[in-house]
């Protein structure tokens, strides 16, 4: 999406094996960005805030989140930017130090994400056990059955470690683990031929839809975010980072594209409006409904993907790279959050659990609810600030000088 490439010196690789094709796309491998692309950090920080708010029960702030105004939501932003930054960082590692080293580094990242997921799972388990065993409201005898899964801890916990059993709201990190696990291969193909990689990815997406590929979940069903489908967004992000965005820039900035995107966003906005204001339903043709619904989040519905693309196009157009606001103090917290995404994501999930817990145990009025949301965001910002400070201090220690590793944060994506 954002032409980071503009500021990045493109380096031509040696001719790829397919050197026969003279017009094979030139592979642009970015050298380390001198200055970070703050827009990425900003948008990722924004997505993190939205994910936190969406994980809390409905409240006033929920109305600020984009899922209420269109088909796609923060998850799309997140996965795309994660793919984008992963390609920037590990792409460089792969070019400079080879496939093996880059793979090792990616796998280390996978491990970090996995561990983070397991920690969150443990916290969730503690919370759910407490809430379910302390409640006696006869109105909700059924809902308390959520603890049933603990009747077979041997099975459940093993399934959780295998990432097959995941409670609500804990689906993003496993998706990220799956995507990163295959990223070395993706990156390899991307660097040989970006177009081929994208085509393969789109092909897999198509196969997923026609043959219903999915990963099984426990106790039944499938992964909430189907990695076979969501990889499209991740690979697309990586493709954009490695030169795709630049190639598309002329199409992207044409007035026709912009107006199509705007029209589509309006259509999506109207459609979502009919969900919240059912009276409007009469103005939605029945045939359109039959055709559109259900809009499948699990398999990254085409409508969602298009919606994200349209949003991205308009964002790139109206949020210029050198927008002075990016340096403003007010956006600093968002940017900081975006720069430590895995940590902040986990803190966000944890805070959402804690928030739910407070709401559940000490009854929540709208005001308490609002305060919890705001405090959560403040804590996330403070934590991000501490991480930055620590990184700065540790960086001054000097000798480590592993700039590339330091930047793994940038690629972290944290889901």
């Amino acid at each position: 999406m954002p032409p980071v490439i503009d500021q990045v010196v493109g380096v031509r690789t040696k001719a790829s094996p397919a050197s026969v094709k003279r017009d094979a796309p030139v592979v642009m491998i970015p050298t380390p960005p001198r200055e970070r692309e703050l827009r990425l950090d900003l948008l990722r920080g924004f997505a993190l805030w939205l994910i936190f708010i969406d994980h809390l029960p409905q409240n006033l702030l929920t109305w600020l989140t984009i899922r209420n105004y269109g088909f796609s939501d923060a998850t799309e932003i997140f996965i795309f930017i994660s793919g984008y930054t992963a390609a920037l960082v590990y792409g460089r590692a792969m070019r400079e130090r080879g496939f093996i080293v880059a793979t090792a580094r990616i796998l280390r990242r996978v491990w970090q994400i996995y561990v983070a997921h397991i920690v969150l799972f443990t916290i969730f388990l503690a919370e759910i056990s407490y809430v379910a065993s302390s409640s006696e409201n006869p109105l909700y005898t059924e809902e308390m059955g959520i603890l049933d899964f603990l009747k077979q801890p041997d099975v459940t916990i093993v399934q959780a470690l295998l990432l097959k059993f995941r409670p609500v709201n804990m689906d993003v990190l496993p998706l990220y683990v799956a995507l990163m696990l295959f990223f070395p291969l993706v990156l390899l193909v991307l660097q040989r031929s970006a177009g081929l990689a994208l085509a393969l990815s789109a092909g897999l997406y198509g196969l997923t839809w026609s043959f219903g590929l999915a990963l099984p979940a426990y106790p039944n069903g499938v992964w909430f975010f189907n990695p076979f489908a969501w990889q499209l967004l991740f690979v697309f992000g990586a493709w954009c980072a490695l030169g795709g965005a630049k190639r598309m820039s002329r199409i992207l900035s044409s007035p026709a594209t912009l107006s199509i995107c705007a029209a589509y966003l309006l259509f999506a906005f109207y459609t979502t409006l009919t969900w919240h204001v059912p009276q409007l339903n009469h103005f939605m043709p029945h045939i359109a409904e039959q055709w559109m619904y259900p809009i499948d989040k699990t398999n990254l519905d085409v409508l969602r993907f298009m919606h994200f693309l349209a949003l991205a196009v308009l964002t790139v157009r109206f949020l210029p790279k050198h927008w002075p606001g990016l340096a403003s103090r007010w956006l600093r917290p968002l940017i900081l959050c975006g720069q430590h995404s895995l940590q902040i994501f986990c803190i966000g999930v944890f805070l959402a659990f804690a928030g739910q817990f407070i709401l559940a145990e000490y009854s929540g009025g709208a005001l308490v609810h609002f305060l919890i949301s705001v405090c959560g965001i403040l804590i996330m910002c403070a934590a991000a600030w501490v991480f930055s400070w620590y990184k700065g201090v540790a960086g001054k220690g000097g000798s480590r000088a592993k700039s590339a590793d330091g930047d793994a944060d940038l690629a972290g994506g944290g889901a």
Partner: protein
Amino acid sequence: MRTGLASALIVLAASSAGVSGCADQPKSCDVPAYLLTSDSTLSRVASVVKAGGPLNILVVGSRSSTISGAEGEAYPVKLQAALREKLPGIPVNVSVELTPRKTAGDVTPGLGKLVAARQPTLVVWQTGIVDAIRSVDIDGFREALDEGVTALRNAGADVVLMNMQYSPRTETMVSMNAYIDNMRLVAQQRDVPVFDRFAIMTRWNERGEFDLFSPVHGASLAKRVHSCLGRALSTFLINTARINSAEPEARRQ
């Protein structure tokens, strides 16, 4: 803040209106009109009411269709009372078939036989919660609903689908949305009305009508909620069947 003010106003308005209301009816549990009607209709119910009854309704549901220890105060009983009140002169019977801990897929195979045995005019099928808790495969859920609705219809009954209760304490632990959406989808495709219990209770909670958050309340909260649900459901049925409740009043002459 604004919702707080709004709900304060509503409570005020409702309590002043409620003075004249019947005593056992809770102060206010009003539901916006769009949740009390449907584009789909209930033709069998309409013709039975026109013919003067009897109107037999069968509620097929999980444990949230009853209150343990206070079965007589659960919404099916309240529904029967409200319908008898609104449709004077027409015999109304509401019976309940509980299917605790059963998913839609578990219940579906028996539905045809059930209707054949009981001969209801209308089946209110309350389902989805067990499926959501066990996170049953969503496509399987949709297919089961679809088969169930078809079986009920073929056996000669009108159908109303009812979705889950809204439970704020567990809201973020059980993900309901996909199941609610798919129920709505089946309803749309089969042209069957949905009684959106989830939306109604969400609204009550938001407006401060009931403190659904509270962990312990004895049965009194449950009783009040069920009473309101029963009344809302009766209005929903009458509106959806397009019954002019003044029309069948033979006693007026």
